[in-house]
């Protein structure tokens, strides 16, 4: 009389998954992403998969220079990700990393151009650091102030601040353009190298990488062991509880966003002063948004972010390399990046949920 059928599968929420299993799932997702990319590329180009993987690998590690570029890219992305993380822990969705970086870069450029004849090199660099932090902090602080005071929506606000930053940069590019009418700044202080961050151990990118590494450790400690970090977590979880224990919520919101914006400003400074030595409206290359994903995938844990930012930069560079070396359009690398992100983000589902298949043999009473 049993005519009821158990569904083929049902989905249930998982309990706490041990961290290594979580990373196993993510690892599988990356593997599947690579397979899917290879299949797509094979279908389009007819190349064999091994050479496709070799191309992906060589995109990142094909030469020492490429490896350095890879690590430099990771450093900048990681820096922005670390910057937005305190805000995210507070459930303040700062998607204005892009704009905060840009104004940081703008402030850096201003120092490099306006102070080059006034101050010695170290003085210019000091001003760059201070100015970029202040610029980023102001850009992040404005939405925070409005949120704390009038409860405005921070997502929209920070997003819109991005466009203002872009336009501001566009304006100053025209002001400082070299030569007149070129519509771009070009390499700043190419002869004197004033305001260029020092090259250490003969490696152009090493300083950036070391700075971001230090920031990463500091952020980990700050978020997990400091009183500020604890306040941020409480405010993020429940503002009412925060008030109940006497935390000044408004102050925590503004303080945290000053930090978040300031660090984004530093990322902009590293980009302009450390590697690019120029300023364009697209210099950030969408890192302010990619950082959101890096931060989320790492569950807002600064140490895991090293891994997630590596993953994303590595796969993006691999995808870029495929499209250039097989003579494909740039859009093809976008497709591959899309496939990769689909798998990585999709893997979170399998980490949080379990699929139970129908019991093979069910004994009836």
């Amino acid at each position, binding site marked *: 009389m049993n005519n*009821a059928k158990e569904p083929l599968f*049902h989905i249930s929420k998982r309990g*706490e998954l041990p961290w290594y299993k979580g990373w196993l799932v993510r690892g599988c997702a990356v593997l599947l992403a690579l397979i899917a990319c290879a299949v797509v590329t094979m279908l389009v180009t007819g190349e064999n998969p091994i050479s496709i993987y070799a191309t992906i690998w060589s995109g990142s590690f094909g030469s020492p220079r490429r490896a350095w570029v890879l690590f430099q890219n990771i450093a900048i992305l990681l820096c922005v990700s670390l910057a937005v993380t305190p805000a995210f822990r507070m459930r303040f969705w700062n998607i204005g990393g892009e704009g905060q970086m840009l104004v940081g870069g703008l402030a850096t450029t201003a120092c490099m151009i306006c102070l080059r004849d006034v101050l010695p090199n170290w003085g210019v660099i000091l001003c760059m650091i201070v100015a970029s932090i202040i610029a980023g902090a102001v850009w992040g602080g404005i939405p925070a102030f409005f949120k704390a005071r009038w409860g405005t929506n921070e997502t929209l606000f920070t997003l819109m601040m991005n466009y203002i930053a872009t336009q501001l940069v566009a304006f100053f590019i025209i002001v400082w353009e070299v030569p007149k009418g070129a519509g771009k700044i070009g390499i700043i202080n190419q002869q004197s190298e004033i305001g260029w961050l020092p090259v250490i151990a003969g490696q152009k990118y090493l300083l950036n990488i070391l700075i971001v590494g230090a920031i990463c450790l500091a952020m980990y400690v700050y978020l997990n*062991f400091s009183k500020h*970090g*604890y306040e941020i977590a409480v405010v993020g979880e429940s503002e009412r*509880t925060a*008030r*109940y224990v006497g935390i000044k919520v408004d102050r925590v919101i503004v303080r945290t966003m000053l930090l978040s914006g300031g660090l984004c400003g530093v990322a902009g400074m590293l980009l302009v002063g450390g590697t690019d030595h120029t300023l364009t409206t697209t210099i950030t290359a969408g890192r302010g948004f990619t950082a959101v994903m890096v931060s989320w995938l790492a569950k807002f844990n600064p140490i895991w972010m090293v891994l997630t930012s590596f993953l994303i930069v590595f796969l993006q560079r691999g995808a870029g390399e495929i499209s250039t070396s097989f003579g494909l359009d740039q859009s093809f690398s976008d497709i591959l990046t899309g496939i990769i992100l689909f798998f990585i983000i999709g893997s979170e589902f399998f980490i949080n949920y379990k699929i139970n298949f129908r019991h093979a043999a069910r004994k009836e009473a």
Partner: protein
Amino acid sequence: MQNKVPAVELRHITKRFGFKGIVANDDISLDIRRGEILALLGENGSGKTTLMNVLAGIYFPDEGQILIDGREVVISSPKDAFDLGIGMIHQHFKLVDVLTAAENIVLGIKGKLDLQGATEKINAICKQYGFEVDPKQKIYDMSVSQKQTVEIVKVLYRGADILILDEPTAVLTPQESDKLFNVLRNMRDDGKAIVIITHKMHEVESLSDRVAVLRGGHYIGDMVTAETNAQEMTNMMVGRAVSLNIDRPEPVNPRPRLEISDLTVRSEEGILKLDGVSFTANSGEILGIAGISGSGQKELLEAIAGLQPMERGKIEYIWDDGTRENLIGKDPRQIHDMGVTLSFVPEDRLGMGLVGNMDLSDNMMLRTFRRGKSVFTDRKTPHRVAENVVEELDVVTPNLATPVRRLSGGNVQKVLVGREITQAPSVLLTAYAVRGLDINSSYTIYDLINRQKAAGVAVVYVGEDLDVLVELCDRILVLCGGRVSGIVDGRTTDKRELGLMMTRIGGGSNE
């Protein structure tokens, strides 16, 4: 009579959680019959809610079968449960705050959206059962009891004829509970099957036809209510004999500790919540606060705790040497910096007193994390405090690193009360301290409160169970519509008197 097939037969239901193999339900078989109100009893964490969630399609059992009207069914989603006429009213409301009552009620129902028609149907249901719901009111504007009413109407609207209520009276006043019980009795007589989870023995005795007892995930047995009593049921639940009397030691050397005068509070919408409230809370004494829910209890406690802006009035703290200090205009931190240790167990535990996603130690830290000059937090002391609280209050938790939202309601409350008491307060404010707690835990809490009283703490106990208020409190202040209806001696008053005072200022004449 024997040919009557039970509405629901649960057979050998087993449900495990997590990797550690916690068994919430272990081989439970239970019948639910039409035309009967079944009370499901058990201590916090005994698996009652889990079992009912299995029936409501929220969890899928690892083993066992469910038969509805003798036919085996598979309930793999709440929708399946609805289709079978099973409706559950949860302890934590599942409503969308920004939508109206009517929108919440029709949410998820297939077919054309007809709010007008729905509103009429809702009004009809309300009229039939005596509910008061404004279909156009937004959920965020509603009190806790109004929200619950919406939940119940929602289930009825969908035509449920097997109703599960998870601690429905925890948020209701005695009057509201009586109203609800009448509705439930009508529905039973109408042939519906009703399961009610509750911890209040007098409700079980007055309402249910049959009781089933769970303990530690096991099914212990069932009894006809008329043939048993509170003591027997409690013993079955706890697994040993327990005493059902609440102690009330004489206050030791009571002195005024808090003096509140002419306290007047308006809500943000400008509604008068407290109107000229004056009273004194003494050290070494328990002052009970009685009143219909929403009579200003929340505002009163929050005003004292420094969380509620007020229109006028005075709140004075009286030191042992007789000097007075005003608490008005100070936030919790400033009050703490004055040296006044004020503990507050708020009504909304996870929304205000605790952080659901943080573990036990981190929640213990909430009150004390600022201590010391270091920029870093001290994690060791809170960890020890958490260990102590878990041990002394028998908190059921896998470990100290478990987020508190994963604990059952009673254990959450123990964590909160435990933390607040650890501070060695001079004033202890509690709002519905035993709401949702089983008998055993409730008595633990009463005992803790009595110990605070013995230690000279001024305790303000906002309660809803009049039986408990009368047994526990030295004095009882009755609020009615934000005004003090009267202050009576707990030793001489009775439920009837309190009930009258709750509904009318002064409670009418006493002749």
